[in-house]
């Protein structure tokens, strides 16, 4: 194992190896092993059973619903994230730090509570419950409720990624564009967007991973109707509770794959950012 040492301030070789060993063991035990176990369990009975589990109709409908859920939640939060980052990073106004705190709010809320608030709003006893019933609109225990809960939980992700990035880039380039005659849209499309594209990509990917993988909030509002209001994580739960481990881990392996892709994109984005930093 190659160990780089610092010239005048470094630990002895033994301590260094001990630290590396402890850190790697800890990460292996808590991260590496579980990640490996997901795929191992999914394939423990062979590829045929794995494929069969994924092609089962209920699994398919869960996959489809998950894509619909993320397909709505991610673009909405994307538009919001860009708008919020534009206002916060490029302008000075009163109450800015309060706004940033409020945007972070969903991070501090338990996923279960995020689902609960929508039950309180739209449930049978909720604020809008009787009105919705009278008009025969079903939000809760249906797709709209799932989307709303997902919107809430994934609300801060893209904004959180963009705000520091755009703040760091300042507004000189935008001012230069305006002084050269560019309109607001031209400035945004030609100058701002190309500068934030990598951070934006990671924000979208992370938001997507969280949207597809959200469990607690969606579990509260979904009603768990098989083939109707089950997303992939909920389907995993049902299969697991029925002791159908291979199928549970097969669906779980898709979500784990999504997580791995997300991490890969994150590394790529950081690598890009570092490259840019070195060139500047």
């Amino acid at each position, binding site marked *: 194992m190659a160990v780089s040492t610092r010239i005048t301030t470094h630990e002895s070789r033994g301590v260094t190896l001990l630290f590396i060993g402890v850190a790697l063991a800890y990460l292996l035990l808590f991260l590496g092993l579980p990640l490996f176990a997901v795929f191992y369990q999914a394939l423990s009975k062979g590829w045929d059973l794995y494929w069969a589990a994924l092609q089962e109709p209920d699994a398919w409908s869960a996959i489809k619903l998950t894509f619909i859920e993320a397909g709505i939640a991610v673009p909405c939060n994307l538009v919001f994230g860009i708008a919020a980052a534009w206002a916060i990073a490029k302008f000075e106004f009163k109450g800015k730090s309060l706004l940033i705190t409020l945007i972070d709010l969903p991070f501090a809320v338990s996923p279960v509570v995020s689902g609960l608030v929508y039950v309180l709003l739209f449930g049978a006893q909720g604020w809008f419950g009787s009105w919705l019933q009278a008009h025969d609109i079903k939000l809760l225990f249906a797709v709209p409720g799932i989307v709303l809960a997902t919107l809430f939980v994934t609300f801060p992700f893209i904004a959180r990624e963009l705000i520091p990035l755009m703040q760091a880039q300042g507004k000189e*380039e935008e*001012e*230069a564009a305006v002084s*050269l*005659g560019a309109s607001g849209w*031209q400035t945004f499309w*030609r100058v701002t967007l190309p500068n934030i594209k990598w951070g934006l990509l990671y924000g979208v990917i992370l938001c997507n991973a969280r949207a597809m993988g959200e469990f607690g909030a969606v579990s509260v509002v979904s009603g768990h109707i098989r083939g109707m209001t089950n997303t992939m994580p909920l389907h995993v739960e049902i299969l697991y509770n029925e002791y159908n481990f291979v199928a549970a881990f097969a669906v779980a392996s898709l979500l784990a794959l999504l997580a791995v892709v997300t991490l890969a994109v994150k590394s790529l984005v950081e690598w890009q950012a570092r490259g840019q930093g070195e060139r*500047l």
Partner: protein
Amino acid sequence: MSITIENINKHFGTYKALDNINLEVGSGELIALLGPSGCGKTSLLRIIGGLELADSGKLLFHGEDVEARDARERNVGFVFQHYALFRHMTVFENVAFGLRVKPRKERHHEAEIQRRVHELLSLVQLDWLHDRYPAQLSGGQRQRIALARALAVEPKILLLDEPFGALDAQVRKELRRWLRRLHDELHITSIFVTHDQEEALEVADRVVVMNKGKIEQVGTPDEVYATPATPFVYQFIGNVNLFHSRDHAPWTQQHGDAVAYVRPHDIDISTSPQDDTALPVEVKLVRAIGAIVRIEVSADDSCELIEIELSRERFDTAPLACGDKVYIRPRQFRVFETGETNELSAT
């Protein structure tokens, strides 16, 4: 295009950045806004460029009020302090930007854009870098690209914010001369901001000295150096010795609290007193720096040092050494009442 600035005021919160500024810039002039950091020079430049709004006052381009026109309609070229080049575009695309974002009706053909960008790149002598990215350029090259980009839209006015601030000394000197020559070629009304007196005196037709949101003096480089209007200008441009009249400056013929300002090269040294107003001093330090010799002396009853500069030729005719007792007398000086000099103590 001429610029007229009338009674412009600007606050940031309770801080007064610009205090009733009046200035007239003639067509084709090259003007330097000179002052210490925080004196309001950049704010004034940004107001002219439309990047900031003045709280009150009037701004006229060629007699026409442009207050209501926003930055993109002012036809002003702005060169930013840190260049603000678009980092994801090549040098070529940076310069072409202003041409490409024109409304469809006014936009040139691609061939015409190509021709003009290459023409501008040749003008700044960087055509060979056209496919590089800003990050691959040196500071001086970025500066020239920023200038080419600003010139692409054929501005009537060119504004430059600390154009040489981020460059090292050698490149600065070169770019200064180059900017002067470029201005002589193009004759665009230009204003640049700087905190470097040498830069302002060397490049500009006229220098506007600013301090604490106010204009201290407007004049040619020679005027602001030779006849400073205020104590601040005296101290900010060039070196100066202060003589408090009561004790050490009988030649001022002044009574009461006044201070005489004398440039180091305006002091004569002699080994014997020519008259009774000469000040007896002792030489504390002699140091030759290139073509000049710097001598520090102090009066017998004071430890305050007085700086004197002699040409090497002159020094050689009557060399001095540490500890020599000599007499000094200023050839040129200016006296300010103490009241006028109060604000100096802060700077």
